[in-house]
């Protein structure tokens, strides 16, 4: 069979909603796109632990601390599910990690913003996890089997993340005037970066068409962003908080909210490494990687020694 035939069979499977599995033939570009997307998604989960981890020791109650610990641990889990999905495509875990540490691979820009007050932990769960869920629910139906399965697992866990965030926002927004001010301040800072999480406008998103054709994505960036705005604005109203966008209004005709212009210069500047925390995030990941090196090596050496002992019990006991 020619590769043209392979490609036709591949596309007809996609069109018929048959999932692509690891050993199936797939175009090189599909594989590359997936490895890039899945690993960047994994990196985002891992780096995403840092802004929230910042508040674990300062959580105001044991209940909040337990919740935050569990959430951050989930994010580590999400990263691992996704790395393992990327590995089914032939990617090497250590290569992926190196790409993150050297800056060759990107992660979601949202995690380059700092968590300045306790309400930020609520805003992250509500808005950042909320935006992630909008995207991830779509990805549970992505065409690549292992990625779709990882997403199903992740989405089940995400709804806890969003709800605990909203509950925290409620506590702040309905609390003292100072608490309410903190909640408003955090909404002011997180709203626009959350909208940027969906990526550039469709008109400026060159890879989008192919990703839609391959059903890696099933909705465009702008569609997802609109979904998110439509469900989130009433949630903000319930809290009695003001979305920091003077152009935001319900458009009866469209049946959607209209919203203001996103500052794409800020977006690209953060993507390029100049956000408030880019360097700090990579430094933290690099330190964790380097500080853990001896543990990884020692565990491997220990495992090898145990294995040897099993193979030749006498020789090993004499040597010991």
């Amino acid at each position, binding site marked *: 069979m020619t590769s043209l035939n392979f490609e036709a069979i591949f596309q007809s499977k996609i069109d018929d909603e048959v999932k692509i599995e690891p050993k199936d033939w797939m175009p090189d570009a599909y594989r590359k796109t997936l490895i890039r997307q899945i690993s960047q998604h994994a990196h985002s989960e891992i780096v995403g632990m840092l802004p929230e981890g910042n508040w674990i020791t300062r959580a105001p109650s044991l209940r909040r601390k337990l919740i935050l610990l569990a959430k951050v641990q*989930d994010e580590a*889990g999400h990263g*691992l599910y996704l790395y393992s999905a990327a590995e089914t495509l032939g990617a090497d*875990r250590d290569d992926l990690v190196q790409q993150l540490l050297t800056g060759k691979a990107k992660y979601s820009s949202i995690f380059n913003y700092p968590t300045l007050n306790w309400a930020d932990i609520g805003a992250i769960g509500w808005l950042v996890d909320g935006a992630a869920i909008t995207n991830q629910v779509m990805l549970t139906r992505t065409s690549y089997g292992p990625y779709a*399965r990882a997403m199903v697992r992740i989405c089940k866990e995400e709804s806890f993340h969003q709800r605990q965030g909203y509950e925290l926002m409620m506590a702040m927004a309905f609390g003292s005037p100072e608490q309410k001010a903190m909640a408003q301040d955090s909404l002011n800072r997180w709203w626009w970066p959350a909208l940027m999480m969906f990526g550039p406008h469709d008109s400026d998103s060159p890879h989008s068409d192919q990703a839609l054709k391959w059903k890696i994505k099933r909705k465009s960036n702008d569609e997802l962003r609109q979904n998110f705005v439509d469900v989130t604005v009433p949630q903000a109203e319930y809290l009695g908080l003001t979305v920091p966008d003077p152009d935001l209004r319900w458009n009866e005709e469209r049946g959607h909210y209209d919203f203001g212009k996103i500052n794409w210069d800020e977006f690209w500047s953060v993507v390029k490494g100049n956000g408030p925390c880019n360097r700090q995030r990579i430094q933290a990941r690099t330190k964790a990687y380097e500080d853990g090196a001896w543990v*990884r*090596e020692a*565990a*491997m*050496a220990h495992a090898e020694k145990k294995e040897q002992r099993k193979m030749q019990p006498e020789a090993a006991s004499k040597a010991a």
Partner: protein
Amino acid sequence: MKKEWPLWEIFIRSKSGLNHKHVGSLHAADAEMALENARDLYTRRNEGVSIWVVESKHITASDPDDSDPLFEPARDKVYRHPTFYTVPDEVSHM
């Protein structure tokens, strides 16, 4: 010496009476650590009562390109299915 921890495939029995089912993979230095990591990674919400770990390199998988010759023989044996047989309506419990 730099060597990555090998990859393990993880299978979870979600409750007694059900099969172990593949859930994903993870890296660990040995089987014991693979079990512990699988516990933390795949059963944080009571998803399992039993875990199997198998080093990925020990899995032999069929080749999807061979799936036609592999599964073809079963395809034309319709007589293996109960629907192949007509039993009169008067006859019950069958």
